[in-house]
């Protein structure tokens, strides 16, 4: 009975323990083999519909939604329905996981060995595990780990196996499949594979979304995917891919599930296995193709010391409470249930969920007080952000923010509206760079004002902002954190104004900007090495495209970039205003606020 489960006491086996537990400690003392063969009895979802992986396939293929799309596709393309259905079946074969406990046990054995060599410790917050154990029983769970390394998802499955939690099915990129054996091994440990791009392919999308939703609806297993899509090269959180989030939220919106729990998981490394690869990639050397031989060659990483690894399981976020009062589920009442085409998008909520997720993690990191991390200003930013976990990077900034005290007796007054305008401009400019919820500008601004006021940095009145004496250096620090981005974007805009000709193609853009930045650095005119990062350059281009400074024109099969020099110039001017004394105070505070808002 549903009511019983809700009221039942917590799992009696679990004792509440605070903080992190090093899971390797125990492993070092006992047999790996026995561990791999131990009795595994996971906690199960109370509404579980027992079903095998093979049954899953037929449920998906028979589902109303897929049948509907198959008919639609067949009438559009003129192919026979049987052919389209066959195609759907093939897509599903290519995609589906074949979770097997024996493979998981094999991995558990191997990973035990590997982890013990690689890491000094693997720390997990047990409280989070307990919360997850609770959440898993009540509603279907979606795990949202951060993605920094190939290690991430092996680690997740390993941990869930260890804590007797149901093994997740993991959305993985198709590129793994090109690895011999390994791809299949991953498949048997619960990975299912999706193509990197299938934008226009209706059938593929239908199969994929129905597959995920079916697993969710039946409570088959927790679903795990990486919101960031790809591994974050700079360790800064990436703008999330919300497509999958939409899919997992839909069963709730349509009333097929009472609720869905999103569980953010943060995985931080003191050193990432792929660190040198990442740095190279950012400087323009393409990512090596995933291959089994590559993996074997990478054995040497086993001999190095990668320090500690921290895994933090966040608080489950209930989709129901997240969207309460914001989405009227009854809007689905008038459509047939198989139809998902005309339905309202919920991206905004997906984004909110993600923001909550990152905020949670920040809170955690600052609570844990990551020692030994400081923000090395003088050094190239690339290396610094590499050593810090992306989240830690943010929290380090916050610690500085609270720690700095200055005694200069400098007072400055700015007009509130000016500051807000600057703030809004930055928000617009950097919306590809940081995760921001569209439309929340005023709210963010107010929050930032509030926080700065609380710290005694600012006094905000109705029309004016007064900087306090002690706050100046705090502001200076905060704005300097943002400085690399500002400079980087300025470099890109200067490049666009000064160096481009008519026929700049999209492909040439990144290397050309890199060369331009390199020249500036060698000439000593630029101190900011971050301008070399291809991530930043891509984001800047996207921002200029969005703000109509650049537009794409398709010529033949090439995409060229047409620069509107006037617009780019004025954007650059605004970016550059921070150097002008008269604007400095407004800028300073708006940047500080922006910094806080993100």
């Amino acid at each position: 009975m549903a009511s019983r489960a809700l009221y039942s006491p917590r799992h009696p086996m679990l004792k509440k323990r605070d903080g992190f537990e090093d899971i390797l400690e125990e492993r070092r003392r006992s047999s790996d083999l026995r561990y791999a063969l131990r009795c595994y009895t996971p906690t199960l979802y109370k509404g579980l519909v027992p079903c095998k992986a093979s049954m899953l396939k037929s449920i998906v293929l028979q589902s109303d939604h897929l049948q509907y799309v198959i008919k639609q596709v067949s009438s559009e393309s003129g192919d026979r329905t049987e052919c389209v259905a066959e195609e759907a079946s093939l897509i599903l074969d290519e995609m589906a996981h074949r979770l097997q406990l024996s493979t998981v046990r094999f991995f558990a054995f191997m990973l035990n060995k590997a982890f013990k060599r690689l890491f000094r410790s693997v720390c997990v917050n047990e409280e989070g595990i307990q919360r997850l154990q609770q959440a898993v029983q009540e509603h279907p769970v979606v795990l949202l780990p951060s993605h920094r390394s190939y290690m991430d998802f092996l680690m997740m499955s390993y941990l869930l196996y260890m804590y007797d939690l149901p093994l997740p099915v993991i959305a993985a990129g198709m590129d793994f499949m090109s690895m011999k054996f390994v791809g299949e091994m991953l498949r048997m440990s619960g990975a299912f594979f999706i193509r990197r791009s299938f934008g226009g392919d209706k059938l593929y999308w239908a199969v994929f979304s129905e597959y995920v939703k079916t697993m969710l609806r039946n409570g088959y297993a927790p679903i795990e995917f990486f919101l960031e899509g790809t591994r974050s090269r700079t360790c800064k959180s990436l703008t999330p891919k919300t497509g999958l989030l939409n899919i997992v939220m839909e069963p709730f919106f349509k009333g097929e599930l009472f609720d869905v729990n999103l569980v953010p998981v943060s995985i931080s490394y003191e050193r990432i296995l792929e660190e040198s690869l990442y740095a190279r990639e950012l400087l323009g050397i393409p990512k090596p193709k995933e291959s089994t031989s590559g993996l074997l060659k990478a054995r040497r990483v086993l001999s190095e010391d990668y320090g500690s690894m921290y895994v933090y399981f966040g608080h489950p976020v209930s989709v129901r409470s997240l969207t309460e009062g914001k989405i009227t589920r009854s809007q689905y009442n008038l459509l047939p249930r198989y139809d998902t085409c005309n339905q309202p998008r919920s991206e905004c909520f997906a984004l909110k969920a993600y923001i909550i997720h990152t905020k949670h993690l920040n809170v955690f990191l600052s609570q844990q007080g990551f020692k030994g991390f400081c923000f090395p200003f003088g050094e190239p930013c690339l290396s610094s952000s590499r050593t810090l976990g992306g989240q830690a990077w943010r929290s380090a900034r916050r610690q500085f923010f609270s720690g700095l005290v200055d005694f200069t007796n400098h007072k400055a007054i700015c007009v509130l509206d000016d500051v807000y305008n600057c703030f809004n401009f930055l928000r617009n400019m950097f919306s590809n760079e940081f995760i921001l919820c569209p439309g929340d500008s005023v709210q963010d601004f107010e929050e930032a004002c509030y926080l700065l006021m609380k710290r005694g940095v600012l006094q905000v009145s109705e029309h004016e902002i007064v900087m306090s004496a002690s706050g100046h250096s705090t502001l200076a620090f905060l704005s300097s954190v943002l400085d690399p981005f500002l400079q980087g974007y300025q470099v890109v805009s200067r490049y666009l104004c000064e160096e481009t000709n008519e026929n700049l193609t999209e492909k040439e853009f990144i290397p050309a900007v890199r060369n331009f930045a390199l020249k500036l650095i060698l000439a000593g005119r630029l101190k900011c090495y971050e301008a070399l990062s291809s991530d930043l350059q891509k984001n800047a281009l996207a921002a200029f495209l969005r703000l109509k400074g650049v537009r794409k024109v398709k010529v033949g099969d090439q995409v060229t970039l047409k620069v509107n020099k006037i617009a780019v110039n004025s954007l650059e001017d605004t970016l550059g205003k921070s150097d002008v004394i008269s604007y400095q105070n407004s800028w300073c505070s708006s940047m500080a606020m922006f910094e806080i808002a993100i």
Partner: protein
Amino acid sequence: VCFESSPTAGARSLSLRQEIMKWNGWGYSDSRFLFNKKGQAEFTGKRYRLSGLILPSLKDWFEGTFGANLQHRSPATPSLNLSAVAPPNLNQPFVEDLKAAGLAVSHDPEDRVFRAHGHCLHEVFALREGRIGRVPDMVVWPSCHSDVEKIVELACKHNVCLIPYGGGTSVSSALECPREETRSIVSLDTSQMSRILWIDEKNLTAHVEAGIIGQDLERQLNERGYCTGHEPDSMEFSSLGGWVATRASGMKKNIYGNIEDLVVHIKMVTPRGVIEKSCLGPRMSTGPDIHHFILGSEGTLGVVTEVTLKIRPIPEYQKYGSVVFPNFQQGVACLREVARQRCAPASIRLMDNEQFQFGEFCFSLILLNFFLLKNFCFKGFDPQHLCVATLLFEGDRGKVLQHEKQVYDIAAKFGGLAAGEDNGQRGYMLTFVIAYLRDLGMDYYVIGESFETSVPWDRVLDLCRNVKERIVRECKERGVQCPPLSTSRVTQTYDAGACVYFYFAFNYRGLSDPVHVYEQVEHAAREEILANGGSLSHHHGVGKLRKEWMKESVSGVGLGMLKSVKEYVDPQNIFGNRNLL
């Protein structure tokens, strides 16, 4: 069910019903559940088949389900405290004119209190605590259509508020006197208009005064060899006029139809005059059907005085039945298939596992004998998931048997096993006594209520699950100590969907304002129903309880249309019960 025969309308005193019925609970005063000295439950009186029976295991179920304890009693105030009733605000000229016209009136507090409420939980709870809110200032008993015309005319003349009263079984706060009403409120009791005026055997119609109570109508027609076949669960107490005013639905609607299918002609007195059609044609294309302004108007437009109904010869043969399904999903799938093939019996209802257990444990209603139980276990039936459908077939013998076979064949496809006639019959019997159970619960700190909705077939399961879960959750959040009873049943099938009933009850010990908690939970449950594609109401109506969702349910324009009808028909708001709009 054996109904007590009541005296014929002419000889009846004005408040006879009131004398044999509880003033602060459901049904007849002599029929109630109680726990005797041995702690065994029994049902008193002689009116029902269950009357006089001892139900030994009800106590265990009751204590186990609600965490209640027979030591912890919450008895009702034994009798009405007359001093708690505010003195009547009479409109003297109106009273004089009524008396001059020879109409029976009363401003006796008991008469007024009896007509001031329906059977919503908060209404009954307040009565049990002896709290009396605003009550009508007087009661008037018209005895025929022309009396009603006179009353309405005088009400318009003297600007008093009229609230029509039929059987008093409303569960939508429809009978509550609006607090903001400053005029004299007059309860217009139709109980004296209870004659069958004529029966037309050629056309199979009967012309009946609207105050007649369901069981009287059925009994009197039966004496002539006919029936209406309209059997709402409240038919012992609810009136024909009330059915029309709320768009009632009967258990056997699959054969006879709901009230809107049964009426051929309606006469209603409004402040503008009498509204009726000019002939008894079975269907008309004369613009929007004016009957549909009346059906479901909930006493806001006027008083229904006379109704012409379809009647049918009493069926030759009746047979109950029941089917046990391995789980609720299978049961719903079976009902859906039955509806698809359009072969639903007169009644088909599907109880979920909680209700099955309730029936099983406390009444041994679903007497699964040992053989049967063993058989079920062998077939992989889990008592924690079992659910049961009860069936009622009607018609001529040969067809019933054929029909029965067809339905059981369908059930078998969904894993259903026939579980006997007796179980089916007991299931239906439970319908009439279940309302009495609430009063028992209220003696021991347990409050509860039922509510209903209608929903498309493909959303039935999701709706049931989500609403039940929402109830459990809301109760927990609001500090209810023990998990509530939260169960559902599918009670009607249609081509495009089903009617779903929810029963919900909890132990309120430790809560400072249980009724408020109850209302919040019910509110949340209704929100959940609407979010999952359910309707605001299938047959209980809107009243004042569900008014806030009307606009959302019928759109702003729809509500505007209804308002403009009200505006035209009753510009002075004489029928000022403020239901619906």
